[in-house]
């Protein structure tokens, strides 16, 4: 196991290096110049050229990369061109929004998808199954941003239960913070749950057809035990795999939903940085998200061992 972890850690470092190099090259190959974005069409091209020089963007790309990498290794991700604030600090300042949002969305996703998937499988080809599938189909079909707008329309504009957007912050207490993340978490989590419902259903269906489930039932174990202990546990591996991938997608979904709900999170930081060609921020955020996804995948792999003791990595 130790050897495995060491190998994964090495792969982690290589992945991040490749990601950082890729992002670095891509954002510089893309047409678009941060100095021009800052100066805008009403400024003079000469001023933009001077700003470009001052921001150090005229130096060769390998030199810029080496310098950035050196800083990153020391934990310094550079300074935002737009905000003039260290990138690390910007990312940290956005985590209190994005992490709880992702956590709430992920929780919502799992607590909705698992029971619904189980229910559908249990009632295979009956009304309950069709109903569950219709609901999940709707979930897959509705884009998150539209769902978000509908939720705002209903719960903020007409019912006035929650704010239409913005983030109240945690300093005023736990509830105001959670309240401002509730709608986006629903829009993000429930609609991501749709995919997981289907994965759960098909995986559980496969296992339900296994001999050992039939045997268990023939032995007279309770339906709860047959479903929970004998079926779900064995069906979990593909479900966990899909859930892991879904978690990665939450990051992408957050970019759009944070804009719809005007939340100052990591997704909006990334979007704003790309538009403004704030290269250090784009790099910093991408690196952070990539690390998180690699980490989630790693956690999923480790979870396999827990779920199925037959799996050995050495």
């Amino acid at each position, binding site marked *: 196991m130790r050897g495995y972890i060491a190998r994964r850690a090495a792969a982690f470092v290589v992945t991040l290096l490749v990601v950082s190099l890729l992002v670095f090259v891509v954002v510089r190959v*893309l*047409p*678009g*110049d941060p100095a*021009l*974005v*800052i*100066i*805008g*069409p*009403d*400024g*003079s*091209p*000469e*001023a*933009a050229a*001077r*700003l470009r020089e*001052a921001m150090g963007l005229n130096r060769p790309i390998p030199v810029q990369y080496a310098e950035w990498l050196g800083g990153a290794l020391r934990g310094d991700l550079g300074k935002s061109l*737009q*905000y*003039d*604030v260290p990138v690390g600090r*910007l990312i940290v*300042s*956005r985590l209190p929004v994005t992490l709880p949002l992702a956590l709430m969305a992920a929780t919502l996703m799992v607590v909705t998808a698992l029971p619904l998937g189980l229910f559908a499988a249990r009632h295979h080809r009956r009304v309950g199954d069709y109903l569950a599938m219709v609901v999940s189909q*709707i979930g897959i*079909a*509705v884009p998150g*941003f539209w769902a978000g*707008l*509908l939720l*705002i*329309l*209903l719960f*903020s*504009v*007409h*019912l*006035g239960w929650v*704010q*239409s*957007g*913005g*983030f109240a912050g945690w300093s005023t207490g736990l509830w105001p913070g959670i309240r401002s993340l509730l709608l986006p978490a629903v829009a993000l989590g429930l609609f991501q749950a749709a995919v997981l419902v289907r994965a759960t259903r098909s995986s559980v269906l496969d296992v339900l057809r296994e001999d050992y489930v039939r045997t268990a039932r023939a032995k007279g174990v309770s339906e709860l035990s047959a479903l929970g202990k004998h079926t779900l546990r064995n069906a979990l591996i593909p479900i966990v795999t899909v859930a892991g991938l879904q978690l990665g997608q939450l990051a992408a979904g957050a970019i759009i939903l944070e*804009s*719809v*709900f*005007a*939340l*100052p*999170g990591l997704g*909006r*930081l990334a979007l*704003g940085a*790309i*538009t*403004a*060609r704030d290269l250090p921020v784009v790099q910093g955020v991408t690196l952070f998200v990539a690390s998180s996804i690699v980490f989630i995948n790693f956690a999923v792999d480790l979870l396999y061992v827990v779920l199925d003791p037959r799996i050995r990595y050495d």
Partner: protein
Amino acid sequence: MRHVVGLLLVVLAASSVAFPAAARAQNLVVQVATEPPGLDLTATPASATAAVVFYNVQEALVKVDRHGKIVPWLAERWHTADNKNYTFFLKRGVRFHNGRELKATDVKFVIDRAMNPETKHPYPGYYEAIGDIIVKDDYTITFTLKSTTANFLLNMARQGSVMYPREGVETLKSEPIGTGPYKVAEWVRGDRIVLVKNPEYHVKGLPKLDRVTYRFIPDPNAALAALKAGDIDAAMFGIGPEHVPDLQKDGRFQVIIGETTNDVIMSMNNSRKPYTDVRVRRAITHGINKPEVVKGAMFGLGRVLGTNVDPLNPYFVDMSGAMPHDAAKAKKLLAEAGYPNGFETVLKVAPQYYYTVRTGEVIADQLGKIGVKVKIEQIEWGQWLSRVWKDAEYDLTIIGHAEAWDIANYAKPTYYFRYDSAEFQKLFKESEVTVDDKARRELYVRMQKKLVEDAPVVWLYIHPRLAVTKKGLQGLWKDLPLPAFDLSEVAWAK
């Protein structure tokens, strides 16, 4: 799917519209679509920065008021006998937010810094004519110009000429200090900027608001929802014209529709075939039905333009009828230029500005009728700036130019229009050194006529000022003679 929407609509219709009574504390929450790229007016010309800082946090020696007139401000008066030496007499007792009084040496420091190429001021050209700056005493300062410059006072009123203390240079980008009615209290990156009242403000009785919060809500639908939910008091630059009729009917809101200096144009690359031929450019102009464009793209809001100078400019001449829509004439001109069957062309637009895409779609349809097949290519804003604006890699493009008094762009052959007319350049040069109002007006009329004749771009319409606020908010500027958002006189009705 349809059932869900139906169900939602039923729920929405059934629920009576509960709207919390607006608290009439003198606080204002304003939506803006874009977060400023830094708050330093001497480093960025971004209108998002001006919307927060200009006139609210920092002010200049003179000010362009709500009617577009240049009035004394931090300087209580000025004097010039020869239009070359301008002496400004500073208002006494004007204090920066750090408590220190504004003195003539501060003015010299600020303008010297603007003229210094090292500081990367976005418009060094505005200060080029200044030869010498002489501090006579604490409250008197004289600018000696190398040559007569007709726009000198205007340049001193622009956003790049705001006053700040020497000790505040380091924090200009994040926490600017000025003499304005409000102080920057907090900037939560990505979420909001909060301004609070400056109790020491040099104009008695102002400002009237205690606190102004700018919230960044990029999505127009989210902005509308926030307004309807009562989470924001006003949407300044973000509600599309399609929502105006609905909001005008809603008793909770007032809709302010005014003029701006933002002229929306379709530029033709004058250095690229077939637009090198003036007949083709005229044909394109005649091929466009501007009132229909305004109707289709802007729901009828926005004044049709005929040339560059905007209606808020004192030298505005209405030339909207000079090159009217005339498809037959357009076709004839195209045939004369050697394109009897029209041609294919690409229109590049940046969807960041919604009106460019909508306008492009209407125009593509109209030009199709004279045989010009327009392919619309949507590109991201950063790309637009470097490909179209900087490198002029385009056939056609649409954008709004928000800067006031920007006719100078047509005198720069390297500008992305690539319009190069010696005659126009000569006229412009003359207008820059002509101080006599009548003579200068005459030059402006001639310049505008020349532009119409050469048709380097198609001037489409003025992007209207569309602001929506809760009822009871008073004192907002109706028109925007320059891209500023003065909140000093704004207040809730008691």
